[in-house]
């Protein structure tokens, strides 16, 4: 098991190296140029352009640019081309904001999907099953921004509360309890909306998985032992139904970055997704690349965690 862990870790490092090259090439070779060095930009003179090119190392050969970029990234000297701020500091600020949305959204998704999916599978064909199926399809087929706007209108009109941004403007003088409530409120609405699509998909998946498991022979064995239905489903069934989700659990980590671009944009939530989106529009390569790189790292960490978890929950994968 130890050797597997070490091997898997080094494999991931090698993968990361190749990803770093490819994502670098994709960004640098993509058509279009940062506005500062765009010869068509009337704001800058030819000398300005030349100066920027030098400053951004764009005059050097590609492999050197690659080296300089990652060197700066790891030494923390990388700066945004747009405002000359350190990239890591900028990303960290946004990361904290996204993290909240991500944690609350994920908790809501997983805590709701599993009970709904399991209950629907156990009572297949019941009113509950059919209702949850119906709503799942509605949520899957209608995009979340549509609900977002409807919910915003509804909440703002009925409760007269603002839900945009991370807090209500002008609350800084209020009691801390009100400030906290305000924060929570601003967090919960976008989290729920971000979670809706996930709940719909995940609960379907849980249901399918559970349905498959409860028709296995070992479930009949568990019943033949004299166990109660709850023990049969939640002890013998659930443990097995859980296996594929362990893999998924690792794969949700990257959602931290790209998962909520739309929701962050609608709710003017200053998170990573929105930052990445803005960086792409401005062709701010250092930010784009760093976010890319972080996404890759998160994916690899996620799969690494999945591998480890898999070994814990599935005895057939002990190595």
């Amino acid at each position, binding site marked *: 098991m130890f050797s597997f862990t070490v091997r898997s870790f080094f494999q991931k490092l090698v993968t990361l190296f190749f990803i770093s090259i490819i994502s670098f090439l994709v960004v640098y070779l993509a058509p279009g140029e940062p506005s500062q060095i765009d010869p068509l930009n009337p704001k800058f003179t030819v000398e300005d352009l030349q100066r920027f090119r030098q400053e951004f190392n764009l005059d050097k050969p590609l492999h050197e640019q690659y080296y300089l970029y990652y060197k700066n990234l790891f030494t923390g000297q990388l700066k945004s081309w747009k405002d000359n701020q350190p990239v890591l500091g900028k990303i960290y600020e946004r990361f904290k904001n996204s993290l909240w949305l991500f944690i609350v959204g994920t908790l809501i998704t997983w805590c709701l999907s599993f009970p709904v999916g399991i209950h629907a599978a156990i009572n297949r*064909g019941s009113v509950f099953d059919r209702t949850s199926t119906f709503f799942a399809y509605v949520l899957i087929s209608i995009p979340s921004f549509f609900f977002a706007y409807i919910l915003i209108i509804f909440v703002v009109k009925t409760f007269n509360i603002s839900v945009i941004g991370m807090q209500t403007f002008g609350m800084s003088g209020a009691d801390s309890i009100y400030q906290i409530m305000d924060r929570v409120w601003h967090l919960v609405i976008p989290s729920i909306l971000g979670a809706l699509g996930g709940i719909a998909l995940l609960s379907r998946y849980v249901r399918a998985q559970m349905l498959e498991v409860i*028709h*296995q*022979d*070992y479930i*009949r*064995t*568990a*019943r*033949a*032992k*004299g*166990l*109660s*239905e709850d023990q049969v489903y939640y002890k*013998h069934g659930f*443990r*097995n139904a859980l*296996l594929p989700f362990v893999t998924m659990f690792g794969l949700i980590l990257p959602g931290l970055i790209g998962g909520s671009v739309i929701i962050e944009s609608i709710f003017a939530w200053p998170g990573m997704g929105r930052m990445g989106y803005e960086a792409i529009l401005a062709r701010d390569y250092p930010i784009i690349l760093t976010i890319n790189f972080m996404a890759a790292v998160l994916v690899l960490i996620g799969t690494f965690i999945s591998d480890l978890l898999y070994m814990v*929950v*599935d*005895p*057939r994968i002990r190595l």
Partner: protein
Amino acid sequence: MSNSEAILKIKDLKVYFDTDAGVVKSVDGVDLEIKKGTTLGLVGESGCGKSVTCLSIPRLIESPPGRIAGGEIIYKGKNLLELSEKDMQGIRGNDISMIFQEPMTSLNPVFTIGDQIQEVIMLHQHKTSAEARELTLRILKKVGIPSPEIRIDDYPHQMSGGMKQRVIIAMALSCSPDLLIADEPTTALDVTIQVQILDLMRSLQDELGMSILLVTHDLGVVASMASHVAIMYASKIVEYGPVEQIFSNPGHPYTLGLFTSIPVVGRGKRDLYVIPGNVPDPLAFPRGCKFWPRCVFAEDICRSQEPFLENIGEGHTAACHFRGKIDKHLWKEKTNTGSFLNISR
């Protein structure tokens, strides 16, 4: 045939499955009886309803699509079909245990075999987990698992099919049941393992005094294990009686067909006679005797009236309009087949 010594009596059991194509009557009026401490062999072609009969005794038929549409299952004087689910849970695994046809998939892959056996013991016997583990070790040893102290912490995938079936037997026997339902316990296993498993079941039966309902395709197994046999055809019992009686004097044309052997040309060996025709589709059973399309003795009455089980000897019943008149000699004449299986007990 006194009723007092019967541990299980099934009367007119009907188990139906509601499917899209229609109602499948997998068990349709089955009567069976198992005497205390003995083994009843249940024999029949694939799909005739043996497994469904077995599963309905501890009420393990999945519903939907299945349902027990009628009849009684009297276990030690109580009709199991009238018990609450809670009472039934107390009986399953404790009084009535099952061994399944599929040893490879009947154990839960994510728990150790020790945990799976201990679970039954702790459920029914209120023992601490240390005591249960101790008992589990003893049972594993009893069913012939080598070095049980190590194997107890194995997961099912670490074991061979024969070992898994031993584990399942250990699990089924861990609470010393009075009735063991073994649904083709050896069909999925190698011949040598089959012999070992059957020997094991027999010696455990002698030791524990339990009754066994043994489903099998193999008449040799019946001869060596059972005291009584029930022959099942198309959701019904067509012949029932003590093994000696049925082997020496089969009274139903279907049984006669099962017992006939034919020489294999040029090999000096004998092979089983194959009854012509197919097992009828349970959605479209023939009218009258369900066996008539395949029966060499069939006459008009067979196509219109269904025969019922009636006595043809001491504790020996058959469901044929010509019961008592048809025998081996007539059969040989009519079918031109060779000699009968010679199975010694």
